[in-house]
């Protein structure tokens, strides 16, 4: 398979938005990495350390990154591996939903704001119900909007495994969200 040389043609290959410079990557993608760690269940107090670790690994691996590929799935893979290792420790297994009230913005509680906050809490509860492997695929596909082949590449899984995890994740996420809505309606 003949492809263009990696790392050289990126700027002219329609992926010029991917910064090659580490500073630029940090500046442009810090928020993405931060949010991703949150979506992977990392509590806010731990996110700084893990974001540091993600970018340190990115710094070291940057020379080997193929800039023809989209950057975010690659970044996500670092965040996923690091979050996965972090969550294996029993003391880190509690989720971040307990702190949601601390991280939402302090804007006046208009109806719209309240609704978004409730939606956010529901999404987080739904994500919490997923195994981390499924959660990674779900977040990348449904929230980040990545294509499944890229997801499979980034997470180093077969394509069909990616689709399988997505299907399972969707079902569980939907079931969790609907159950919570039902409970809220009954209370």
């Amino acid at each position, binding site marked *: 398979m*003949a*492809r263009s*040389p*990696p*790392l*050289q043609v990126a*700027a002219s290959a329609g992926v010029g938005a991917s910064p*090659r*410079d*580490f*500073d630029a990557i*940090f500046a442009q993608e*810090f*928020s993405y990495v*931060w*949010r991703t760690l*949150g979506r992977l269940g990392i509590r806010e107090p731990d*996110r*700084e*350390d*893990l*974001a*540091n*670790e993600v*970018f*340190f*690994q990115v*710094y*070291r*691996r940057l*020379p*080997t990154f*193929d800039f023809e590929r989209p950057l975010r799935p690659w970044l996500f*893979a*670092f965040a996923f*591996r*690091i979050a996965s*290792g*972090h969550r*294996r*420790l029993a003391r880190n297994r509690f989720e971040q939903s307990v702190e949601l009230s601390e991280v*939402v*913005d302090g804007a006046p509680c208009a109806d719209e704001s309240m*609704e*978004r906050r409730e*939606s*956010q809490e*529901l*999404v987080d509860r*739904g994500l919490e119900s997923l195994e981390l492997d499924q959660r990674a695929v779900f977040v990348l596909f*449904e*929230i980040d909007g990545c294509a*499944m082949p890229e997801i499979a590449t980034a997470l*180093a899984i077969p*394509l*069909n495994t990616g*689709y399988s995890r*997505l299907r399972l994740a*969707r079902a569980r996420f*939907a079931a969790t969200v609907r159950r919570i809505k039902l409970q809220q309606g009954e209370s």
Partner: protein
Amino acid sequence: MSGRQLERLDSDIAALLRNAEPYPDAPVDARARVHDALKLRIADAAAVGLQNVEGDAGAPIDSPAPTSGIFSLASRPILALAATFVVGASAGAGLHAVLRPPRDRIIYIERPSVSPAPPASVFDVVAPASALPASPEAPAIEAPPPARPAATEKSAAPSSSDLGAEQVLLDVARTAFAQGRGEEALGPLDRHAQRYPKGILAEEREALAINVLVTLGRYDDARARSARFLRRYPGSLLRASVEAAIEAIP
């Protein structure tokens, strides 16, 4: 199951995901703190010869990733045991170095043939002082042996300064390459290959060199070097990068 069979997301769930966006962003001060900590960490890693960095350099990114140092050590008894051994051995080596009769040895330090590229970013590592000659005119007296397990004199194990110097060369090459100056990247890579043919970072050097050669259109050189790379490092984490570079050759 394939993409063609993938159903649409249920409308209520899709709406929920839309409404929930955007996810809370990082506090401004958190970004600044991570930035500062990262900057120090990168500089520290270079200053100590990337010992900690290289400790996980061989680990695939899909292996359990290290978290903060305390967490990772406490959660891995084997690592803790190994760390205890290393500390003990280092202390022993240091004690031995202090107690044994002084022995001056003249060594010659090679002057850098080019000055390092100016820092391109706040994250660019600074060449560790130990990698530079104290005085360009006088031969240097060898510093006391580093506090490492004994036998470093006889073995080819690189010192911290070697590692730091290796990293500096690769950083210069990487920066040049990332900025599209492939020709300039080859110089430090060649110097690294001459000075540290079997250096700790030889694998990374080779992978980077192959990518550089491909972008410069030196396909035969790239193929030959790639073949050597794959023979020498069949299980390399950088294999995918090397193979992608070779596949990219028209």
